[in-house]
């Protein structure tokens, strides 16, 4: 018998602190699996966000840098521009990437910065106890939208993939999910592609992973993943939003 599935080497032995059923664990594993497959652990440097994944620096065995809230793409830009042979990735939540860090996200994309961004969208601010996120759905009840997100007062959610794909520059943008095995497998492929693009010097790759927050959504892990299927994915459709590689082939 051979091992067909085991914990990736580029995850450390530290036990994850995430809530039971939190998809961060799945997504961390997919990133680690990509790093292992591509054999790049020795030259990878990851940038951790502020959010539930703030301690990601303890979970990946590559060199890691903790960034200020929202600033990971800028930190990654500094890292990549000074160490162009290294592989630089950021791992960010919806507040980090689409609220406080929106300028850094857009500008890294428009510079086609040769980095890999893993964007975890669970429509809520988990670490601080469940406040509204820029990706919280209309009507969604959170600690700072206790009567449901009122689009008249609090605006509409931001679809990051659609928005960034309007820019000319970014190389690859795909939205995936991890709510069932089929989606996890597609997410794994997308994340590996996002790293491979960087190795090949192609430019900015962002993978938005539609995720869940059972604790702050007030649901069991099972119900939360169903909610992803029923409510999140219809609002944030899965698929490839930008693929300059494919466009180049067509041209």
């Amino acid at each position, binding site marked *: *018998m051979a091992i067909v599935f085991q914990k990736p080497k580029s995850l450390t032995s530290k036990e994850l602190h995430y809530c039971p059923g939190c998809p961060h664990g*799945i997504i961390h594993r997919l990133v680690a699996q990509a790093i292992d497959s591509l054999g790049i652990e020795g030259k990878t440097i990851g940038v951790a966000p502020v959010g539930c994944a703030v301690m990601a620096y303890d979970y990946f065995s590559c060199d890691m840098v903790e960034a200020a809230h929202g600033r990971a793409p800028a930190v990654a830009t500094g890292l990549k521009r000074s160490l162009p042979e290294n592989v630089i990735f950021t791992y960010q939540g919806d507040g980090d990437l689409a609220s406080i860090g929106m300028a850094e996200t857009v500008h890294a994309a428009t510079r086609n910065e040769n980095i890999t961004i893993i964007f975890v969208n669970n429509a809520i601010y988990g670490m601080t106890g469940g406040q509204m996120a820029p990706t919280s759905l209309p009507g969604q009840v959170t600690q700072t939208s206790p009567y449901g997100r009122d689009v008249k007062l609090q605006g509409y959610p931001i679809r990051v993939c659609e928005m960034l794909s309007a820019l000319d520059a970014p190389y690859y943008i795909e939205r995936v999910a991890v709510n069932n095995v089929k989606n996890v497998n597609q997410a794994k492929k997308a994340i590996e592609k996002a790293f491979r693009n960087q190795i090949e010097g192609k430019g900015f790759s962002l993978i938005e992973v539609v995720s869940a927050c059972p604790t702050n959504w007030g649901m069991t892990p099972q119900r939360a993943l169903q909610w992803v299927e029923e409510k999140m994915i219809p609002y944030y459709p899965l698929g490839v939003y930008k693929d300059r590689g494919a466009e180049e082939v067509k041209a």
Partner: protein
Amino acid sequence: MAKVTFNEDICKGCGLCVDACPKQILKLDRSKINRKGHNPAVMTDQAKCIGCAFCATMCPDCVITVEK
């Protein structure tokens, strides 16, 4: 022939593996409490396991190792 091993100590009893298993041969063992205070997931019928690794795919904590 397939074998799954559970690192019971780090299981958080989230149950995602139980839902994912197409053969429905996993369960949370309510008679056990691991050192994290959870009911860990366990295999109930190893012979029926097809080594699909769906359980390990959905596990957020790399609790499961699959051999085939």
